[in-house]
């Protein structure tokens, strides 16, 4: 059972069958992770480079752990402290790494489309996008979907609100593609300056500027971080004001009188987009997301890592 694509560049390129295959394979890997020996020999012939041109905590550790649990050999590369600072191009860097017989590349890059560029030039190497600029973060959307299904059974027909900085969020884009493909209804909510004006038409989703209404509507709320590092203009007045208008607080959740599931891809800015008592409260599945991330990434690596030598 192979995926319809040799790379994982974005959810946009996957079919709903691909998504189903990844999620059901991840269920089996989650079982592996409960065992005394949390390791299988599936990718012992495979060497993977983790190419991180941008900072990461969860994604990088999660990928590395997933690779080790699959018995792959791994190399970690950070742009800082490498020859990138001496002016080497992305393609040269990767070609040099691949000449040392590396089979797969997991890449995070600040430029949207960087993994697509690599996939175009290196068609025989599986490229996995671990986040590219403001474009996509496919494994995050897959683990969000896995966690939602684990909690409420299905995505089909469910109402998912994505709240916060939609404009600069690759997590939002990947989630929108995935949720629409799997039959969920999607509303994005945030200040008008942080929601692209075209998004309603291009993605056939609802846009809501009132947080309380969005929370009243949804079954699941995926709360996103304000991506200050990607904003080069003033898009809202202060973080304090943002928290007052768009912060998910326990007072607000009590007011709407509804059991909704809260997700956050991390890193959280407590007291800005989400309050601590919500992040650590009964609605939150934030730590389950992190746990499921390893199983989902194992599934992606497994499905893209084998079966190539005959093709």
């Amino acid at each position, binding site marked *: *059972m192979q995926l319809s694509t040799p790379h994982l560049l974005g959810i946009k390129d996957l079919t709903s069958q691909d998504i189903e295959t990844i999620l059901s*394979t991840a269920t089996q890997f989650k079982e592996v992770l409960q065992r005394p*020996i949390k*390791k299988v020999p599936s990718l012992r012939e495979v060497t993977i480079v983790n190419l991180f041109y941008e900072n990461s905590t969860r994604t990088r550790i999660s990928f590395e752990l997933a690779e080790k649990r699959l018995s792959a050999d791994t190399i970690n590369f950070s742009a800082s402290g490498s020859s990138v600072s001496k002016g080497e191009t992305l393609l040269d860097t990767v070609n040099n790494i691949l000449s040392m017989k590396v089979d797969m590349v997991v890449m995070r890059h600040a430029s949207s489309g960087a993994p697509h560029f690599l996939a175009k030039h290196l068609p025989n190497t599986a490229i996995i996008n671990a986040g590219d600029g403001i474009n996509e973060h496919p494994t995050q959307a897959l683990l969000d979907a896995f966690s939602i299904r684990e909690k409420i059974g299905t995505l089909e027909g469910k109402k998912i609100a994505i709240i916060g900085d939609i404009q600069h969020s690759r997590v939002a884009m990947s989630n929108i593609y995935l949720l629409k493909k799997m039959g969920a209804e999607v509303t994005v909510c945030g200040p008008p300056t942080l929601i692209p004006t075209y998004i309603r038409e291009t993605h056939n989703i609802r846009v809501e500027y009132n947080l309380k209404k969005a929370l009243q509507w949804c079954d699941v709320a995926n709360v996103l971080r304000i991506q200050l590092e990607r904003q080069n203009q003033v898009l809202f007045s202060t973080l304090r004001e943002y928290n007052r208008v768009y912060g998910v607080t326990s007072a607000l959740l009590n007011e709407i009188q509804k059991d909704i599931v809260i997700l956050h891809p991390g890193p959280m800015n407590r007291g800005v987009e989400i309050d601590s008592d919500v992040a650590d409260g009964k609605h939150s599945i934030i730590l389950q997301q992190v746990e499921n991330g390893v199983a989902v990434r194992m599934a992606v690596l*497994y499905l893209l890592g084998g*079966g190539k030598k005959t093709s």
Partner: protein
Amino acid sequence: MEVILTHQAFRNCIETLAQEILGRRPDMSNTAIVGIQQGGVVVAEALYEAICRSVKGAQPDYGQIDITFYRDDLHKQILQPDKMNLPFSVDDKHILLVDDVLFTGRTIKAALDVLLDYGRPGKVELCVLVDRAEHRQFPIQADYRGITPSTASREKIKLLKEGNTGIQVVRFDDKMQ
């Protein structure tokens, strides 16, 4: 396609295997019957029921394992895994590993790898419905075997479970090879 075990012959075979196992090992305490996905699980379920009907004293545990992640041909093809379920500790347990067809021995080798990742069983025995002994590629033999037909290597032996015919074992030419 030729039927080599009809549903009734399958039931008889399971009954005989159950009696043989209980004859050699009447005490089923600290024992688990473990089927290998997918055909082995069908055989293991039937065997478990037959043993539970006849056993005097403690009943065995039951589980199923999937070897997909342990296959030695992942570089050729990717398969989607089946459900694993071992709801007991395998440490010091007597495991009766059950498969439908014993062919090259590679599946059993992988199944042993799976079991050892769950713990350290006291003893592992192998029970198969069909033993194709002449095609073995590994030094693996069954402790209990149902039938031992003579087969050509290009032939396939498959256990089928269908609504109208029940469980059958068939033999056919594999044109892919």
